[in-house]
């Protein structure tokens, strides 16, 4: 069951096209990575999902219903460009944002208190925002995003500007929220940073989706039956029709790292067996392409068409 589906979203501005025919399905309780370079249209899509701007064409369904203003309370959004009212106090600021998301005052108060305990910032209620450090403000922004326990949490470039301690803290909270039933959409142009986190991925480039699906399926498709072997002593294959040496790198005097592709439907076990006869194997791993590599490959693939 998908929590969010978009059907052929189009959006153009006066001088450029931001989105063309974007159709995505975000499965419930997944961590969904919306990846793509700067300017691909990610933020525009997110703003449309948040109903900040309207699409020119296309439809969006939330839990099977057509997306409307009543869904605002079910979405938590941490924008890429984010800030707080500097003159307000932490407590009243969070109360304000929570009430705007439809929480009543008493519930909001209780929830803020419990988050304060969770993030070890109990004494902050009466601190002014402007007196907080950047990292501290980021914690407040994150609380504001998830306070109303939204079914869908959208984080746009969540880690830009976060210090490493906060990044880990937020990753932990995200896993926790997912356990409780929330779905998380990550948007980032630094693909390597969230690759491990995501179960589903959509790649957007130049206003179009170029790839979408479960991460493991995508990776499986782009696997090239290539293995990385670290070994002592150089060797040469006796059967070059079965295994091709793609690259060899000398790591030490008599120590090498070779990239080998299996040809003609041979199995990895066969490769390992042949290697054991030829050399002393220290490590043997399958070479799995990173999202970045897949992205590059995919973009290159599309250029001729």
């Amino acid at each position, binding site marked *: 069951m998908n929590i969010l589906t978009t059907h052929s979203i189009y959006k153009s501005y*006066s001088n450029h096209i931001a989105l063309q025919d974007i159709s995505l399905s975000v499965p419930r309780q997944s961590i969904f990575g919306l990846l793509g370079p700067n300017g691909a249209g990610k933020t525009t899509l997110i*703003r449309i999902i*948040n*109903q*900040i*701007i*309207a699409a*020119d064409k296309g439809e969006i369904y939330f839990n099977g219903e057509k997306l409307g203003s009543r869904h*605002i309370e079910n*979405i938590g*959004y*941490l*924008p890429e*460009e*984010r*800030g*707080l*009212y*500097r*003159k*307000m106090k932490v407590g009243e600021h969070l109360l*304000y*944002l929570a*009430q*705007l*998301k439809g929480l009543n005052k008493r519930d909001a108060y209780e929830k803020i208190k419990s988050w304060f305990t969770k993030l070890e910032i109990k004494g902050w209620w009466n601190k002014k925002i402007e007196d907080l450090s950047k990292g501290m403000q980021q914690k407040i*922004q994150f609380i*504001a995003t998830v306070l109303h326990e939204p079914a869908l949490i959208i984080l746009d470039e969540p880690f830009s500007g976060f210090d490493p301690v906060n990044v880990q803290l937020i990753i932990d909270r995200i896993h926790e929220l997912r356990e409780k039933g929330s779905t998380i959409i990550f948007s980032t142009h630094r693909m390597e940073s969230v690759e491990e986190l995501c179960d589903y991925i959509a790649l957007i480039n130049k206003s179009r989706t170029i790839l979408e699906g479960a991460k493991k399926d995508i990776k499986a498709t782009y696997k090239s039956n290539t293995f990385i072997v670290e070994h002592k002593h150089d060797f040469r294959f006796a059967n070059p029709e079965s295994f091709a040496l793609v690259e060899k790198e000398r790591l030490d005097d008599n120590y090498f790292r070779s990239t080998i592709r299996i040809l003609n439907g041979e199995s990895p076990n066969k490769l390992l067996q042949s290697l054991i006869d030829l050399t002393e194997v220290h490590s043997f791993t399958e070479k799995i392409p990173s999202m970045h590599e897949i992205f590059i490959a995919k973009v290159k693939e599309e250029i001729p068409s």
Partner: protein
Amino acid sequence: MNKVILIIKREFITRVRKKSFIIMTILGPLLFAGVFILPVWLAMRDSGNIRTIEVDDDSGLFVNKLEETSNLRFIYVNVEDDKLFEHTMQTNNYGVLHIPNAEIDDLRQVVFYAKSNPGMEVKDDIRRAVNKELENIKLNRSGLSRDEVNQLKGNVSVSATVVTETGEKSGSAEIATAMGYIGALLIYFFIFLFGAQVMRGVIEEKTNRIVEIIVSSVRPFQLMMGKVVGVALVGLTQFILWMALTVGIVQFAKNYFTVDQFEQGKEQIEAVSPQRAEAAQNFEFIFEQVNSLPLGTIFVAFIFYFLGGYFLYGALFAAVGSAADSDTDTQQFMLPITIPLIVSVVTLSAVINEPEGPLAFWLSIIPLTSPVVMMMRLPFIVPTWQLILSMALLVLCFFFTTWMAGKIYRIGILAHGAKVNYRVLWKWLVSKN
């Protein structure tokens, strides 16, 4: 709707809590009351401070004849001309007035020697005393008495009486002018002050990057209206506090003058301090005159034009704020907003000269200038149909500017670092979503 109320509440509370609001609220009435009280106070100030002036009259015309005022006493001395400086330095009195030896018709100038520069008031009093005595002498010479001369002078004043359906009222153009100015300038001042607050609020939200968080919960139009209304309530609160405090202070001052008068007896106070008695009378007069104006209409119209004018411009200020990344960016867009406001203030003096004239009529009908100009006209009685037309147009125009501002605002607040000019604004205005 609930969310708009939340926004209004936040805008209101954060502004009212600011130190600058509290300071302005206290300073404002002191300033206003000062305008009322200062002239009276100035007139009274010198009453206790009597100065003695030595008169060295070489002509012999003025000895024991100069009329003393409540502030000035004259004693008559004889000093050699070449010892005047020395004498002035030594004397304990305020100064020495030297009247040269001259015939009545040749006397052109007298010299006042003092250790410090005498104020305008002292110089005026001396001049008046000398001239009055000179006149007396000249009158005597021509065989006329002062009474006869006074009878010769024309002495007619114009008392304007406005006739309305409810009866006649005596009116004073001066008081009406003053009332008109106060109302017009207050509205001008409020539009600028609070319009700029809206604008700065929008810029703050934009540069703070809070705006995207807020508009993911509410529509941009709701945020804009919440801010505009919130700031309007701040302005209204400030105005009501000002009025209450000003009335309080003026009432207190009025009591102070009249009670004094009552305790001391009228003759006594007039003998000791004629200014004070006069001041009390002036007060009575002003209050009487103010009461003769259509105060109810003026008050209701003031609140209407105050809010209407502010809303008309408030949304435009918000739109300007949304198109800018900083205060300095706003200048190019401020011009079309400030010009009608400045025009309406600059033309006020022309409006007073002819409150029923075509200039006054058109400027008080056109919505961009009507809030200021109509306030100027109101104390002079405006035909009801003109008032209604002006108000209706203001409301219509308010809807139009707010709609226009909303279209610019919703795109502007999310456009960071874009170079915005009038062409871009136009594109935002006509773009569909």
